């Protein structure tokens, strides 16, 4: 190949390579890379692919447990869920694309995470989504909410995977950087997991799925010499999703996976053909020769550079056992998908690309992967905050009035308007629908289930990254526990500002420390995840948002519980200690107008003791309803139980319980509904287990009555909770 290169340091810089990185690239090649090679270096060494700023810290996270089959590093995490089955899951961000074009950005985010999961052999059984938007009164917010929700639904509904849960909150710090984190959970036979490790010299490299177009080739490169103005305007920066093709790709892949033709398989996600081929080769210590003329193309005159960097969706790369090409081709043709042999594995240890008969790139695989940059960025720990004392609570408003006001705030109101746009029942196994603590999906043809939830409380992480990181994991674990599931493992999606800023890096380091501590204490390892940095606009970063997605197993679905009061006369028991912690609480923010104060501390020993006690009670079949206590404290949790069920409740707090008791956000707490006759046994059993528990009331009637503080009707609560989001989206409320 010609070794003359027109690549200048400026062009390298436009590709996001630092001068040092450019030098290292030249050393590795022993010459200056050409444009195609530069493009490959730039994506392989990008933050997205190389995790260069986060690696050092991610390594500190606990990733192992007896039930972990495959931890971080593959396309998704894999855990053993018994009966010869494995759950495969991951969460990923699609923040920036969703801000640029909310519908397509969110839709392709869902498409991407689905591929990460079915590329490992799993049939996806559930989608979740964690959404963060700017202030409701920000000019763009309404449009972004409408587009993102429609896009998530548009993709998931069409492919036929139920979207069963997630979260959605609003804060001005997201005005210029919304967060769209999508999670997929799949199920596969434990002994039929597929990995992305290439093997077998001479084995064919296969491209399947959609054709390659000039989709999403990243901005910096637009300026580069190779493109004339015309091709510039030809190049869409936004990718359009095709869920129909993804559905065909899913079925075709699972059909092929039922045979033994596949050696390795990897979806083409960000940095499409480059990272998929490179990662497969480097994982297997192989070389790879690709003939780019064989790549199915959507447009004429595509260059090697464009083919390697295109982010066209709904594509997969596979290595097959030599000789099995025709069996595989037959399957993909039945599903009307492109199928092309585009190369072979070699023992050269190099990636060699050919186009129009000549070599257009020739790179050593191992050195490029091995010497990917890794930074130990300087960081400044977030200063601790003062605790907020109960007397700071604004008592000028009654408990019931405050509750009604809280129930119609953007963060606490019902997200029904969102999940009703998602098909959350398709596949016929949704036992626990959206609206509860964790969604519960029956494992098809069994009486067991998977529970899944996503959680994070960004205002806590902002106030104290370590405690906030712990709390995100603890709340996730608690939500799984509250439906009676055994929490097994988590995936994380770490959304932060620029790692080049010491305060942001300090938030990141602190959050990772907290997440790690909680994951260890709760035996809740991290098996997959994703980091999204640079979520900031002119120097103002988002609230640090480490979304935690958790999966657990329900051993007997007949004993799993929801949050609603289903019968009159049930006793209501509060599990866990209440000190009335108001710092960084929603009561303080929404009623007193202050975002001050340290967040509630998470005592992981208590968390575990309380959770294990509650789970055992649910497993015993005696519990009728259970809800964890989080945002808004006891009062809000009670209101949610009243709304989800058929009855109100009459509650009595301890002597002199004030706003801090009703709205404080102390951790490790649950509300349980149980037969009145059984309540005293429950309380004393708790005592024996060293768990604090007290009867606080009884279910029944059509109102929520808080003795000494008045009454509010279910109807008034329903109007407050269900009313806000639809009214807001219709342009009425704000």
């Amino acid at each position: 190949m010609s070794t003359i290169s027109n690549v200048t340091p400026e062009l390298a810089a436009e590709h996001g390579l630092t001068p040092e990185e450019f030098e290292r690239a030249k050393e590795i090649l022993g010459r200056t890379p050409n444009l195609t090679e530069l493009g490959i270096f730039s994506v392989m060494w990008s933050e997205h692919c190389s995790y260069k700023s986060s690696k050092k810290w991610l390594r500190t996270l606990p990733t192992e447990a007896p039930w972990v089959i495959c931890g971080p590093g593959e396309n998704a995490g894999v855990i053993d869920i018994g009966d010869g089955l494995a759950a495969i899951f991951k969460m990923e961000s699609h923040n920036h694309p969703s801000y640029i074009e909310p519908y397509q950005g969110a839709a392709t985010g869902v498409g991407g995470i689905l591929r990460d999961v079915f590329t490992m052999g799993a049939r996806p059984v559930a989608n979740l989504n964690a959404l963060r938007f700017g202030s409701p009164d920000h000019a763009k917010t309404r449009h972004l909410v409408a587009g993102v929700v429609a896009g998530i639904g548009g993709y998931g509904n069409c492919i036929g995977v139920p979207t069963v849960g997630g979260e959605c909150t609003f804060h001005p710090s997201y005005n210029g950087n919304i967060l769209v984190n999508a999670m997929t959970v799949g199920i596969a036979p434990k002994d039929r997991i597929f990995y992305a490790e290439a093997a077998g010299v001479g084995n064919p490299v296969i491209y399947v799925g959609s054709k390659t177009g000039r989709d999403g080739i990243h901005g910096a490169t637009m300026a580069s010499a190779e493109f004339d103005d015309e091709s510039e305007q030809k190049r869409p920066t936004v990718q359009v999703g095709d869920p129909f093709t993804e559905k065909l790709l899913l079925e075709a892949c699972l059909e092929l996976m039922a045979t033994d033709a596949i050696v390795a398989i990897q979806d083409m996600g960000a940095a499409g053909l480059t990272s998929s081929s490179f990662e497969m080769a480097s994982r297997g210590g192989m070389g790879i020769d690709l003939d780019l003329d064989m790549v199915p193309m959507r447009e004429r005159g595509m260059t090697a550079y464009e083919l390697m960097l295109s982010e066209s969706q709904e594509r997969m790369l596979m290595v097959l056992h030599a000789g099995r090409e025709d069996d595989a081709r037959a399957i993909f043709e039945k599903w009307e998908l492109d199928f092309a042999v585009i190369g072979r594995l070699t023992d050269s240890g190099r990636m060699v690309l050919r186009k129009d008969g000549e070599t257009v790139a020739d790179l050593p695989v191992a050195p490029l992967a091995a010497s990917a940059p890794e930074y130990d960025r300087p960081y400044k720990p977030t200063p601790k905050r003062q605790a907020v004392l109960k007397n700071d609570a604004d008592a000028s408003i009654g408990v019931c009035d405050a509750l009604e006001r809280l129930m119609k705030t953007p963060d606490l109101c019902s997200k029904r308007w969102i999940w009703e746009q998602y098909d959350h029942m398709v596949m016929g196994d949704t036992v626990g629908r959206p609206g509860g603590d964790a969604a519960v999906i029956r494992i098809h043809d069994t009486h067991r289930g998977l529970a899944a939830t996503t959680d994070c409380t960004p205002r806590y992480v902002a106030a104290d990254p370590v405690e906030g990181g712990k709390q995100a994991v603890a709340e996730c674990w608690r939500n799984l526990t509250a439906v009676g599931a055994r929490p097994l493992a988590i995936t994380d999606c770490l959304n932060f500002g620029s790692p080049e800023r010491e305060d942001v890096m300090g938030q990141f380091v602190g959050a990772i420390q907290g997440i790690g501590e909680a994951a260890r204490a709760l035996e809740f390892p991290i098996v997959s995840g994703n980091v999204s940095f640079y979520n900031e606009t002119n120097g103002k970063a988002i609230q640090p948002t480490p979304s935690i997605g958790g999966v657990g197993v329900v051993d007997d679905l007949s004993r799993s519980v929801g949050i609603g009061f289903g019968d009159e006369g049930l006793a209501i028991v509060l599990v866990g200690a209440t000190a009335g912690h108001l710092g960084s609480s929603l009561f303080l923010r929404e009623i007193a107008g202050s975002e001050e104060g340290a967040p509630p501390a998470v005592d992981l020993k208590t968390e575990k003791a309380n959770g294990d006690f509650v789970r055992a009670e649910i497993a015993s079949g005696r519990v009728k309803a259970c809800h964890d206590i989080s945002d808004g404290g006891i009062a809000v949790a009670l209101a949610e139980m009243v709304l989800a069920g058929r009855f109100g409740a009459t509650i009595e707090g301890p002597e002199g319980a004030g706003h801090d008791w009703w709205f404080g956000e102390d951790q490790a707490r649950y509300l349980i509904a149980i037969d009145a006759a059984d309540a005293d046994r429950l309380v004393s059993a708790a005592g024996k287990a060293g768990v604090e528990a007290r009867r606080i009331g009884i279910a029944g009637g059509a109102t929520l009555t808080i003795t000494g503080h008045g009454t509010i009707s279910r109807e008034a609560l329903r109007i407050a909770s269900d009313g806000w989001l639809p009214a807001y989206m219709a342009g009425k409320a704000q």
Partner: protein
Amino acid sequence: MKALIHITLKPGVLDPQGKAIANALSNLGFGGIGDVRQGKYIEIELPGRDAAAAEADVASMCERLLANTVIEDYRVEIVDNS
């Protein structure tokens, strides 16, 4: 006045519908089908405006609501139907 608006995907943007239509047509036995692109066609009655006013209004309607200018182009034609 009446506005006739064509909204089409920018060149190079994937058109899943067009692709599916092309396949369906060949499955129906129509040979030699090239590229198929599907767009929107919108007609808006604009009583009591002159052509210039209509033109201006419709342009901003497209920018603000009718077209997704990140991936779509639009073309407006004003006809007198009085």
